[in-house]
């Protein structure tokens, strides 16, 4: 997967010319990772992902810089997530993560505490700052390589490597403090 600007510009031109599938296939994983990194709950992340990609679909003809579609999408996701965060401040919503889990089968091998550990992990992830969470989701959710993350976020590879290290260290520290883990 390449996030080279020229490559993205070509995909945008194709989308404008009537073939949007390739562009959205390329952007969906990274957009999902950004949505997960920007939102507090899984349901909210899916809503933000849906809204943002639809927004891109509707706005594809109005992009000023075709090569910058990735930063456009990143900004749209962050804005949509921020809008939701503002609304959440005045309206309580219960996320699926907070709801009791029914019907989720746990194998004996998983142990009774696997669900607790997962909750602790997600809670610790939510505690990280936005940049650290973004690095971890891009790497482990979208499965991007260091170079791809660097292209997507406009940073150098060394900076990405360094931020990933800091994010993992912070996550480990938080988990060590959480008794559920």
């Amino acid at each position, binding site marked *: 997967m390449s996030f080279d600007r020229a490559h993205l510009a070509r995909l945008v031109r194709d989308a404008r010319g009537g073939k949007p*599938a390739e562009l959205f296939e390329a952007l969906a994983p990274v957009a999902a990772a950004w949505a997960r990194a920007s939102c507090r*709950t899984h349901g909210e992340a899916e*809503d933000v992902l*849906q*809204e943002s990609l639809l927004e891109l*679909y509707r706005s594809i003809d109005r992009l000023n810089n075709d090569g910058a579609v990735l930063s456009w999408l990143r900004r749209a996701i962050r804005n949509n997530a921020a809008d939701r965060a503002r609304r959440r401040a005045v309206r309580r919503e219960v996320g699926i993560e907070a709801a009791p889990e029914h*019907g989720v089968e746990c194998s004996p091998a998983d142990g009774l505490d696997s669900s607790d550990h997962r909750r602790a992990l997600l809670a610790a992830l939510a505690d990280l700052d936005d940049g650290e969470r973004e690095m971890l989701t891009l790497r482990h959710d979208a499965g991007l390589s260091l170079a791809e993350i660097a292209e997507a976020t406009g940073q150098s590879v060394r900076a990405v490597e360094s931020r990933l290290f800091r994010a993992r260290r912070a*996550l*480990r520290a938080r988990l060590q403090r959480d008794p559920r883990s």
Partner: protein
Amino acid sequence: MNCERAAKIISARLDRDLSPGEAAQLDEHLAACRDCRRAADDFRNLTADLESAFRSAPVRLKQPIPTAARPARRAIGLRLAAAAALLLGAGLLLGHTLLTRAGSRRKHGVEWTELASGTRVFRHRAARVLFGGAMNDVDELIQLDRGEVEVAAVRAEPGRCSVRVVTPAGEVVTLGTRFSVEVKNPGRTRVEGEGEEMNRLIAAAAAVMVVSVTEGEVLVSGSPGQTVVRAGEQAEIGGGKLTVGKTDRILKGRVIKVDGAAVTISVGRSSGVREGFEFNCKAKGWSGKVLVVRKNSAVLAVKGDAAVGDVAATGFTTILTEAPGRNERTPARPAAVEGGEVVGDLRLTLFEGTRVSRTVAREYVPGGDAEGQEKVTETVARTLHARIENVGRQPVILPLVAQPFRKNVYSRHAVELHARDTEGQAVDRVKRPARQARRDAAPAPPAVTVLKPGESIRQPVEGNLYRLRFPAAGKFKVWVEFAVPAAKDQPLEGHRAWSGKLKSNEVDWEHRPGRAPSRGPSRNRRRHWSGREENRE
């Protein structure tokens, strides 16, 4: 190598291949340092756990983004058409579900949809709406899963209701009105593994429906029961309770300009706010009463103190509901000498009349009389008509082509209207509208008007298709001529063709310029009025 450097390389090892030198140094350090070995294990487990957690709950699109071929970029007009088609396509792929963008109301005004029946649905707050169309005794079935919609409903036929809005918490049935419905706590508590029915019950138990009525009445029903909610009231269904109180959301907008005492508020186009409304508004650091003095599109000019920022009406004190203006004509009287000018069998007479436009407004005050208080405004206008009457004993043929779409208007190719002022100022005839000219350019079916003895035709001098344009207010001496050519191609047995000129008697006409003659309320306005009329009944 120290531990800090080792930790960085341990992290990097998860993302890339290490160089031989780095790998050797790290192995050497790990063999000697127990903390770093534990850190290496933790990082590896952390990575596996993260990937497992992400895999178990992937963030996915709830509905597919349309990836079918989309129209290429073309000219503006084509792009607009393409956008419409695109939305339609998106709607189809999303199962007719239309999603609004979060905050779209605040940023760009309100997105709205006009349904087939003419009912308009304004979508706020990232509403997820499913339009079901007509069903049984309902003209429009609307399913609202989340967010808020505002509905301006048209009048339904007897025995039917125009709109039914179904939400997880209950439903709303219109009685010919305008209202908004909001769903709070929508299905966020979906439980995987449970069936649709159980999830529907869970969502219904968690959801709260808020119905705010701006005009008219609605019937709100849910599991706790049902009730009629009237203008100015707000019903809330949730948690097994149904409560009705005063509405707190009629207007939402933003103060965009404060210039001395003049305040401009930008509101959604659908706010239903009109001149004369008085609101208790609340903004950040400010609250007060404002009176809407002018509305221009989605911008209100209001009287009252205000500060720049978001503003919300916390209640309203007055709602005016207009009824359609009713034209009442007083009997026309001859404008000059009784009898008029007679040429042959035809007589031309000028008639003066008075037209009264009556507008009925109804004022509702929450807590006041349910019938409200009626206010009547009258506007009186003078009218002038010329009349051709057959005073002979035989039917007369006039080559008049009646316009099928408008009463008492005839093709100017048959009848020509003239008027001249007596004070040196020209009086122009208004040119025919382009649309009318195009219509006339089409070959008109041959038609004649046969005036039987005693019958007459009438032509307004002012205020119709061939109205005269007076240059300014003042007194004029007006006379009217009809130039009628002979009916050539339609010799009707037993009828007499007539041609020649008729000039009416003179009349002193005091011209007072007023508003341009109305072409009647627009289609949508008529619909709106229809609803309001029903509200009054």
